[in-house]
Structures are given as structure tokens and as C-alpha cells.
């Protein structure tokens, strides 16, 4: 469903992606792990055209991702994104945040969108917060609203960019819980994360990225429990046993 082939990307003189080839199948949950600065987030941002890429090709359902082409809107409505810092619209309520896309981009009828928006807020456990503005919500609640906003577009896949990295530790569980339920329901997900427990339990596949290349990939349990590559072993040791 999402295909990357030999994707290269530089910021100025720094090459952050040095030939990424990967694919994500429908219904699959893929976690991308790796040290900071390895290019994990850049991959996600290239998939929905928030960044351009220099070489190679990315396609979503056979449609080439080109952030300067009109077709990018089509891709973005099919592939939603959840950000590390939520990026909710602070001047709109939780419900308004959720219905913004369907109402103004997809131009669906208001009554239908409102109903779906409320249902989605209930699904992420925030039915009673529909009229709250983002600054009145905790980080965990904001991120769950952001997930509802992503779902409201009825996407074929959702990209998660370190969705729990900006949260207080005790709020991480709520967000991961919502994501796990999505995965169980068959949503296609690409998740950049440092939550190894989530990757092990929920992901079908894990990609370990370091220095702009995929160092190792495979079924979640085998990559995380028996990493083959020395760099993967080293990274996992440091993440799982920081002391």
C-alpha cells in the first residue's frame, strides 16, 4: 500500500536518507525505531509530502507522492498523520478539530460529520471533552483528540511520529491503548516510536534505522528479541537498559 524505493533526502549538505526501500501492506503495523537523527521522522514526513525527497520514489496505493503536485491532497486525505507535539488547532474545540478536515476539505455534510466526530471522540475515551479547547486538555488527551482528528478523515493508513514522546510518563498508556485498539481493528499504521514494549506487542514488523539506512528489519519479536546486527543490539541495549 505504501512503497518506498531507494529514497534519498538531504537537508543542505547532510544526507538524512541514504536509499530507503521498504513497503507497508494493508492492515500492517510497522514500527520504525532507531537513534534520534537517524531519519525516522523524515521518512514519515516524506510519505505524506510534508517534506520533499531528492531521489527514488514513494507511492501510496500506486499514486506517486509529489508534494508539489495537486495529487498530494488526494494522498493526504488517504494517509493521516499524528504528530509528536499534537498540533491541535488551539482556537477550536476538540470536536471542531476532529471535524475540520471532513467538513472543509472533503466537504461532507455537517450533520453526518458531527455524528462521526462525536463517535470518534467517544472511541478515544473523550466524549465528555468535545467542547473543551486543546489548552484545557492534558497532553495525553490532546494526543487522543489528534488521533480522532486523523481517523475522521477515514484514512487508509495513519502515520504516527513519536506520538508519546512529548507526554508525561503516566499519560503514555492511554495513547498507546488507543493505538493498540486501532491496530486490532486492522488499521494500517506506521509508527515512529521509542516505546519498545508497544513495538514488540503490537507491531507486525519493525524497521531499525540508523544513519539514514535500514540496518535491520523483520518480524517485531525477532528484531527486538534476537537482533542480528551489532548496531541494533547496541541500540536496544541502550534503550532497554539505560543504566
Amino acid at each position: 500500500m505504501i512503497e518506498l524505493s531507494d529514497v534519498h533526502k538531504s537537508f543542505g549538505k547532510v544526507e538524512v536518507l541514504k536509499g530507503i526501500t521498504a513497503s507497508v501492506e494493508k492492515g500492517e503495523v510497522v514500527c520504525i525505531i532507531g537513534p534520534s537523527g537517524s531519519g525516522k521522522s523524515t521518512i514519515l514526513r516524506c510519505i505524506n509530502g510534508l517534506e520533499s525527497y531528492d531521489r527514488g520514489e514513494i507511492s501510496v496505493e500506486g499514486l506517486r507522492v509529489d508534494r508539489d503536485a495537486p495529487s498530494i491532497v488526494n494522498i493526504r486525505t488517504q494517509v493521516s498523520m499524528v504528530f509528536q507535539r499534537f498540533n491541535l488547532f488551539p482556537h477550536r474545540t476538540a470536536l471542531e478539530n476532529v471535524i475540520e478536515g471532513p467538513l472543509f476539505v472533503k466537504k461532507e455534510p455537517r450533520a453526518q460529520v458531527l455524528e462521526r466526530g462525536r463517535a470518534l471522540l467517544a472511541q478515544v475515551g473523550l466524549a465528555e471533552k468535545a467542547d473543551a479547547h486543546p489548552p484545557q486538555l492534558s497532553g495525553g488527551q490532546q494526543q487522543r483528540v489528534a488521533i480522532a482528528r486523523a481517523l475522521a478523515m477515514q484514512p487508509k493508513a495513519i502515520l504516527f511520529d513519536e506520538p508519546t514522546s512529548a507526554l508525561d510518563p503516566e499519560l503514555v498508556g492511554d495513547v498507546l491503548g488507543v493505538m493498540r485498539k486501532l491496530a486490532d481493528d486492522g488499521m494500517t499504521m506506521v509508527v515512529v516510536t521509542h516505546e519498545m514494549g508497544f513495538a514488540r506487542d503490537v507491531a507486525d514488523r519493525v524497521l531499525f534505522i540508523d544513519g539514514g539506512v535500514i540496518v535491520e528489519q523483520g518480524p517485531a519479536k525477532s528484531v527486538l528479541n534476537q537482533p542480528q546486527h551489532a548496531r541494533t543490539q547496541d541500540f536496544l541495549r541502550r534503550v532497554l537498559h539505560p543504566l
Partner: protein
Amino acid sequence: MKGFWRDAVEFFPILLNGVALTIIVTIGSLLLSTVLGLVWAMMRVSGIKALSMLSASLINVIRGIPIIVLLFYLYFVMPDLGVTLSALQAAILGLGIAYSAYQAENFRAGIEAIDKGQIEAAQSIGMGWWLTMRRVVLPQAVRIVLPPYGNVMIMMLKDSSQASTITVAELALQGKLIASSTFKNTSVFTLVALMYLTMSIPLILLVRHFEKRAGKR
């Protein structure tokens, strides 16, 4: 003091005519400068190089010309080019153009102060440039822009007196006319100053209100 009150009662109605014109000039040029300023600011942040450069140079040209020269140009030079404007039209146009440069810079600063994540979130749900501006950026920028906008309103109210140089009989010119025919300079100009101040105070309070509201977030 007694003389002042007697003069005040006598001149106040005449000066009120001036106040009416002052308000018309202020509101007219405020509206014009807001619209033009928005256009310049939008061009500036459009991401299209030609538009943004055109807007930047326009703003610099406007900023580099004194308001009074702009007014003279519109009122005295345009007729030579076949465009005759009434004094009031020239005043509103001149002040509106002059202030559009400051408005544009103010609006641009407000737009650029919006977190980039907001724009990315808008893009990620498929919004194009204009929808992102209208639904996400501008509503948030308004909060940031309002306090300086209020200050511009106060400055415009006072700078509307420059319209007197091209014969618009607003408050300052009315005062000058009365003063030069009655020689009661003290009474007349004290009265004029008080009337400007009276009009400014609500605006000053409005700015304070804006600032309080902007500080809340």
C-alpha cells in the same frame, strides 16, 4: 479660565464639523490600509518569489515616502496625469496607502508567529494554502495582531490631521481657521487637543483590552 469656557461653547459646534471629517478620514484610511496591508502580507507569505519580492519593494517604497508628500502627490500631481481626486478622497487614499505598509508588516509578523506545526497539521488533513490561511493561520494570527493594530488606529486618528495640508477641513484645520480669524489661539488649540484626546481614550482602552486578551494564551 472663564474666557475658555465661553470660547469653548462658541467654537465647539464648529469644531464638531471637523471631528466628523476626522472620523471619516480615520475610518476610511483604516479600512483601506487594512485591506491593502492584508494583500501585501499575503503576497509576502505566499511562497511565490515574484509576489513576495514585489510586495517587499512596494512596502519599502511606501515606507520611504513621508505621508505629507504622498498626500501632495495624490492631490496636486495626479490631476496633471488626468486623475482628479477630491481632497477627502486624496486624504483617505494617501493615508490608507501610507499605513498599508505598517499594517502589512504587522500582519506578516502575526502570520509568521504561528507555529509551523499548525500549518503541517492543516496540510496533513489535506488543506491547501488558502484553506490553511483562512481556517488555521489567520484566526490565530488575529489575536497576535490586534494589540499593534489598535496602536495603528490611534496613530491614524492623529495622523488624519495631515489631511489639513490638502484642505480637508478636519479638526486640526477647523481649529487653525478659527484661531487665525479670532486670535484665540490658547482656547482653540486647547480645545482641539482635548477633542483629539477624547477620541483617543476609547482606543487606548481598546488596545489595553486586546493586550490582556492576547496575554491569556
